[in-house]
């Protein structure tokens, strides 16, 4: 599960141990996690030697499970052209009002932002404030209405407007990449992101300082990226006040409108910004691993079961001195469940109607990069993937009673999942934590962006679930203590069985899944729509 924002380091509690005499199927499930989350695998960080070993492990297990290679050129792997990028220096940011130049102070007023495709950004252009920089065709919301930003720099709040009702849509539109894409589409040449109230509450500008040159990752799309408007700087509230000083827009009023959820004042600021941002860009090796179970009459259509294989590697020691972030729950167990679902299909001896493509994706923790690459460059014909069911960090520490299908509200996949779950005695319940924006934080979202109906399955809050999830997130999520011992294998098997039922239902249904009529994402990414 990709981190949304940095959590304070928490102290560890002793992990509950499950001294179980394991049944063969539970032992098989545990074996994957025990291996993938062993200290020897050093947290499976993208770009590390250990993730390459993990890829080979999954390929070998897929072979043993009876799948056929589903990667590139008849192999198990799909190479992903990963790019790691980080700010190379502090850059510069100068405001010019006529002849008066006001340099902003790095770390106090602004941080430079790294850009994966442009090593040296150097801009000088007039600035237009464009609110949130959001255009939503579905609701008619348009921050660019009446603005001319051609050849200019746009400044936007790093958030999305509250008037857009769907939290999933807001989460999507408020991402810097989306804001930059929208800016480019309107002819802007650069983007200044500004801290708003929402962002300030969860991860204030000042707290980001230690991470100013942390590397981020994406995949290279070569020269085909089209026009770009690099988001080259991030301004804190102090910097924002300096930007707006003396212009016709008042920073106070913008903040107040942001808080109130009313339309933000916007327009040209009558100033010019001269700025530089330098990025160190490196190529990183990585692969998605894919195996196919061929279907029968509908075999030209594919249901994807995905789970990310990477975790966050080796890092800061915890209170016990442990530096290895094993990632048992995140997401060795999701990968393990995927492999066991594959085995169950083969053991069943009855082929599904549609083909099933099992994909262990890479670089999820770096920003859903492997899945995004796969969804944009599938190893099967474009358009043949009818659905994605993603398994990411099911918290298997308790007897679960219900299931959260993130993204279920958007397509017919939701109803199919609910029905299959019901047959296993499990209810599907709404996301109890919409404010966590899980919809854009796991790999199903990459498929959504390719127009494919997709969900991520998480365990629900029923019974001891809410407390167990809270406990895991507080004590073990992205900590060295995310160990194999945390997992209750009886629940693990229930989860496998549930996923098998869901995958079967999707693969055997007469009709392929469709987006709900008029759905925001279905419209945006031109997916198959219910009439």
């Amino acid at each position, binding site marked *: 599960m990709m981190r949304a924002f940095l959590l304070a380091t928490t102290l560890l509690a002793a992990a509950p141990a499950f001294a179980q005499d*394991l049944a063969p199927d539970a032992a098989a499930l545990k074996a*994957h996690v025990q291996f993938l989350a*062993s200290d020897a695998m050093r947290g499976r960080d993208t770009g590390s*030697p250990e993730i390459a070993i993990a890829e*080979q492990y999954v390929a070998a297990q897929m072979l043993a499970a009876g799948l056929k290679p589903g990667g590139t050129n008849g192999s198990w792997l799909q190479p992903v052209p990963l790019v790691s990028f980080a700010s190379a220096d502090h850059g510069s940011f100068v405001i010019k009002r006529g002849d008066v130049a006001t340099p902003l102070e790095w770390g106090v007023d602004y941080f430079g932002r790294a850009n994966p495709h442009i090593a040296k950004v150097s801009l000088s252009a007039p600035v237009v404030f464009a609110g949130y920089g959001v255009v939503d065709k579905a609701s008619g919301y348009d921050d660019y209405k009446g603005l001319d930003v051609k050849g200019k720099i746009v400044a936007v709040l790093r958030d999305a407007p509250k008037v857009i009702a769907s939290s999933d849509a807001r989460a999507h539109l408020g991402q810097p990449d989306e804001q930059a894409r929208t800016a480019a589409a309107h002819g802007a040449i650069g983007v200044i992101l500004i801290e708003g109230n929402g962002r300030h509450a969860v991860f204030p500008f000042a707290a980001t300082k230690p991470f100013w040159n942390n590397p981020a990752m994406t995949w290279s799309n070569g020269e085909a990226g089209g026009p770009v408007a690099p988001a080259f700087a991030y301004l804190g509230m102090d910097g924002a006040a300096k930007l707006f000083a003396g212009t016709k827009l008042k920073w106070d009023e913008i903040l107040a409108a942001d808080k109130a959820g009313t339309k933000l004042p916007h327009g040209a600021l009558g100033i010019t910004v001269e700025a530089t941002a330098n990025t160190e860009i490196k190529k990183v090796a990585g692969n998605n691993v894919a195996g196919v179970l061929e279907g029968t009459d509908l075999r030209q259509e594919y249901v994807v079961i995905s789970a990310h294989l990477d975790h966050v590697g080796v890092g800061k020691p915890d209170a016990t001195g442990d530096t290895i972030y094993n990632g048992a729950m995140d997401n060795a167990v999701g990968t393990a469940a995927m492999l066991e679902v594959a085995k169950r299909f083969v053991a069943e001896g009855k082929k599904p109607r549609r083909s099933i493509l099992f994909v262990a994706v890479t670089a999820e923790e770096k920003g859903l990069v492997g899945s995004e690459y796969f969804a944009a460059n599938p190893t099967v014909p474009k358009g043949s993937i009818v659905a994605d069911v993603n398994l990411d960090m099911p918290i298997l520490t308790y007897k679960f009673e219900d299931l959260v299908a993130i993204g279920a509200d958007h397509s017919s996949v939701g109803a199919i999942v609910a029905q299959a779950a019901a047959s296993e005695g499990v209810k599907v319940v709404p996301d109890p934590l919409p404010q966590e924006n899980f919809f854009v934080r796991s790999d199903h979202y990459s498929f959504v962006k390719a127009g494919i109906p997709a969900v991520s399955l998480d365990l629900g809050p029923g019974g001891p679930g809410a407390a167990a999830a809270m406990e895991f997130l507080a004590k073990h999520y992205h900590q060295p203590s995310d160990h194999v011992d945390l997992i209750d294998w009886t629940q693990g098997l229930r989860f496998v069985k549930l996923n098998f039922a869901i995958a079967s239902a999707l693969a055997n249904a007469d009709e392929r899944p469709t987006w709900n009529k008029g759905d925001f994402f279905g419209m945006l990414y031109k997916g198959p729509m219910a009439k």
Partner: protein
Amino acid sequence: MTKPIWALLPLLLLAAPVAAQELPADQAALKSHVQFLSSDAMRGREAGTPDFDVAAEYMASQMMAAGLTPGAAGKWFQPVALTTYKPSEKANWTLTRGGSATPLQFGVDYINTTGSLAPEFAVQGGVVFAGYGVVYPQGKIDDYKGLDVRGKIVALFPGTPKGLPSEVAAHFGDDDQKARLAQARGAKAVLIVESPQRRAQFPFEAVVPYWDYERSGWAGPDGKPNASAPGAPVVGYVGPVGAEKLFAGSRIKWLDLVAAERKGAKLPTGALVGTLAASTKVAVRSTATKNVVGLLEGADPVLKNQYIVLSAHLDHVGVGDAVNGDRIYNGAMDNAVGNSIMLEVARAFQRSGKRPRRSILFVSLTAEEKGLIGSDYFAHFPVVAKGQIVADINMDMPILTYPIEDVVVLGGERSSLGPVIAAAAAAEGLKVVPDPAPEEMFFVRSDHYSFVQAGIPAVSIDTGPGGAGAVAQKKFLEENYHKPSDQIDLPFDWPSVAKFARLNYAVARALTDADQRPSWNKGDFFGLTFEGYGAK
């Protein structure tokens, strides 16, 4: 006359689907382990590297999936301290005769070696030449006959006298074994003196540049490096110039030795003149590695206290000199495939639904390539009580690139294991044939030998020369053995791999479920030497 069309059909059927053919489930499972363990990502699994540790985790998790439980004191891993050692300096040796001391010259007269494994070791005393240092009653050989070597330094020729059975020769030709025999007779140290025959193979001058070559061993749980004969270590290797000085003035004439060795006659033995002051300094490093041990507990309330060991070394030689641009020595045949078979044997027991009567320990061994170290450690510190291990079946690099017709059982003629294996092989349509290359001394070159030395009936089962075997094996040994090309793209014959796995399962099943425990043949040399069950 042309062939009718139906006669071609079988050919067509055979030819067409090969490329797209999927492996049956048992073969796919076997291939999956080999594919993973020998992938480039595993970087050749050298003992002591992180890559080996990953391989060990893989074996542990696969053992668990196959229904085994942790077999080493409740854990999957038996820690092994892998030591590497070498002489840390060129020593100064002195020969004293009639009150006058002659310094010997390093690199000209001798090189010092690491036998003591002590940081510093010094010895002074008279020197006794004891031929090859062999004591082999069954062959009526006792090189120490009539000699008193108590408190003395024993000088020995390398190798063994002519005419010994190859496995016996391999046993006595080992310097460690010579040191053990010397120690048992009260000697303080051993010198190996270059013999004319050894000179013809590998002259002293060619050995000297490798004087500080690093070798490997293990340290016990107490942290002390294991020396095979700490009371009488091999302290040095003496060349012809040094030998002349050593033998000068003695009644043993060097020319007589040369002649006797050439003829295969008994070498003249006896005390030399003067005293030798010799010393060694050794640098020892220690690296953590591990054996992986999985247990399948037997069902019989009594027999379950007896253990059959199935072993296969997991390590290979790592990353080395590039061949055709490839630096990774993957070790698919050596010995990923042995481990794969071991895992699938465990799974076959699980599938059978019938527990074995005796217990089985599945042991994935470390540091075989560094000198059978993991197995030697395991045999010294077995995870169950000494004496409870009743047999070892080892799998080491069965060459599986052709349809197998027969198998070779190294050590099979020495114990009741041989007939059991022959019967199981026959049931698979396989013959057991004699070792076609006894001169390679495979008997002492694989891990079963560590169990032999602990008195346990033990064999390695290899694929045989029948059919395409001889040619295929020669090809593998010449082109791929210990080369980067020992990898998954070799023409593995997966049906044969599956057949070989079934054979190993049948052997294990027969051994676990028999009423009688395996025993050495009465009077067998190794059985007697190591006081094994049934030999007397």
